[in-house]
């Protein structure tokens, strides 16, 4: 038998229910995998070894009584910007290096209600600002498919961990691609739900009109299973939606007959690596073979403005959200200061890293007197146009398919000194956050041993259709079953 940590959520759930394995055994297997791989991968910031085994024993007691639910006893890793009561939550920042939340995020409450086993917190770009996990204040995470390359970001720790079976699944957050791009780079499944579908309560705020929490999983069925638990309205998040939550697994196995999938031409232009284009063309052909109607006339003409819109709006919101870090109520606090203002300024100078400062500066500028109209207001207007184009496209189409990222995983350090090049890594994913629609990245092939991700974009609150397409594609391929060389070496 393979190591237990290699199980999916669905497989683990079945074996736990039937009491063929215990949660303690399963949890020990993931902890052991972390111990074996972590010196090469650096995916975790905190591993809650003893606490996890306690939770596992508790879950086993529950399972023995026949009270097990979908996620009972299944080990999960959580991105380190989702608040976990009593467990350090750093956001990958010096600012919160020793911060221990006093409450759980709503998604964590939901996992705990299921008696899920939380085994630790994963590495990330500081405050989720980045596309490579190199902006972590602690250390970069490495890509399990090639340790000299980045795992993507900002949920790079979660993606690398799932790819190497350090956990059965993980949670991440996505503001401009931070679940999907690392999922693509590490060959796992990453879903960014519709804005408002999953409660953001307890998610440390980056850009409040764009942030969403979502699952990173080994396959599509697991993505649906986890969504069943974490989605839903939360009175503590006034932007969370009241729409009822469907059973996301219900229509997974329906075929694709009658579904119209658009291929927006604007996503296949300049800067795209040839290998990515080739892999995507093959994947699109496969979708057609299994019954989808492909429409290549789909067009989202304002796509070329999305990067500018995003990098005005997200930093603007960040500059306001991060104003709270003043070294008074929690977090890092500069010691040597001559006055209250001096203390605030030095706290922020020493507590924040370069990329966070860059974004705070950008956002502050875009919101400042004299520039607000030209930058922030203009970007909000173009945001309206981008959203309308998605609405328009979805009048005739059920989903859109694009690459997840225009390039293969790049090497560590390659884009670190050129922020704009780093930003371009999210050029295919950030329009989706601007429009607030859901999208999933699924493994869609390899080039030179490096993963390529396919992004499937859906109508607002229609996660079911993109999961169905992703599931059908996964049934017709076996990319998701490939294991990174790290695990055989």
């Amino acid at each position, binding site marked *: 038998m393979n190591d237990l940590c290699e199980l999916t959520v669905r497989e683990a759930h079945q074996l736990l229910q039937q009491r063929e394995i215990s949660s303690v055994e399963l949890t020990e297997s993931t902890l052991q995998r972390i111990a074996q791989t972590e010196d090469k991968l650096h995916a975790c910031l905190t591993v809650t070894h003893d606490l996890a085994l306690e939770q596992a024993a508790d879950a086993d007691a529950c399972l023995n009584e026949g009270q097990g639910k979908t996620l009972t006893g299944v080990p999960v890793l959580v991105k380190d910007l989702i608040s976990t009561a009593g467990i350090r939550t750093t956001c990958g920042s010096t600012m919160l290096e*020793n911060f221990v939340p*006093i*409450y759980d995020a709503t998604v964590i409450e939901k996992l705990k209600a299921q008696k899920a086993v939380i085994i630790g917190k994963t590495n990330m770009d500081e405050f989720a600002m980045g596309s490579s996990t190199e902006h972590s204040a602690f250390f970069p995470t490495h890509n399990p498919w090639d340790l000299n390359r980045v795992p993507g970001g900002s949920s790079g720790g979660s993606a690398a961990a799932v790819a190497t079976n350090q956990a059965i699944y993980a949670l991440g957050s996505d503001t401009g691609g931070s679940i999907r791009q690392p999922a693509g780079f590490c060959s796992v499944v990453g879903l960014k739900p519709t*804005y*408002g579908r999953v409660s953001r309560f307890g998610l440390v705020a980056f850009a409040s*009109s764009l942030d969403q929490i979502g699952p990173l999983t080994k396959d599509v069925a697991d993505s649906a299973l986890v969504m069943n638990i974490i989605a839903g309205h939360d*009175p503590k998040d*006034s*932007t969370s*939606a*009241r729409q009822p939550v469907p059973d996301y697994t219900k229509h997974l196995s329906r075929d694709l007959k009658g579904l119209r999938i658009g291929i927006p031409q604007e996503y296949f232009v300049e800067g795209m690596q040839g290998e990515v284009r080739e892999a995507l063309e093959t994947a699109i052909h496969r979708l057609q073979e299994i019954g989808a109607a492909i429409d290549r006339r789909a067009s989202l003409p*304002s796509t*070329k*403005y999305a990067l*500018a*819109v995003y*990098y*005005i709006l997200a930093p603007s919101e960040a*500059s306001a959200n991060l*104003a709270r870090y*003043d*070294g*008074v*109520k*929690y*977090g*890092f*606090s500069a010691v040597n*200061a001559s*006055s*209250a*203002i001096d203390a*605030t*300024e030095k706290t*922020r*100078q020493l507590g*924040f890293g370069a990329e966070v*400062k*860059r974004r*705070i*500066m*950008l956002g*502050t*500028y875009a919101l*400042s007197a004299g520039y607000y109209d*030209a*930058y922030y*207001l*203009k*970007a*909000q*207007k*173009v*945001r*309206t*146009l981008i*959203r309308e184009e998605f609405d328009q496209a979805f009048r005739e189409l059920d989903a859109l398919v694009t690459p997840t990222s225009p390039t293969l995983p790049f090497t560590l350090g390659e884009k670190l000194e050129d*922020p*704009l090049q780093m*930003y371009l890594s999210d050029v295919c994913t950030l329009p989706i956050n601007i429009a607030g629609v859901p999208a999933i990245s699924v493994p869609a092939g390899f080039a030179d041993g490096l993963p390529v991700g396919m992004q499937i974009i859906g109508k607002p609150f229609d996660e079911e259709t993109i999961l169905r397409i992703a599931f059908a594609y996964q049934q017709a391929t076996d990319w998701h079953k490939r294991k990174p060389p790290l695990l055989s070496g």
Partner: protein
Amino acid sequence: MKLTDEQVKHIAWLARLAMSQAEIERFKIQLSHILENFDILQQVDTTDVLPATQLSASRNVFREDKAAESYPQQQILANAPNQEENCFKVRAILE
């Protein structure tokens, strides 16, 4: 849009970020480069386009004004860098 030293210092002041001269130099070049790329938005005709204000369909969200249990003082203060007599300790604001 090329930023000057003075502009970078002004933005840093607004953002309450202390900054070394080396940082000012670096941000001046990087931010100018990024801002130049935002000029593309000026090509878009947005006459009569309303700014996107909120994404969800919901408008105002109301709830009853009912007091609920909060957290104990000691927990609230648990992460405070400086505290005294059950309060957050801050530096003097008025001289």
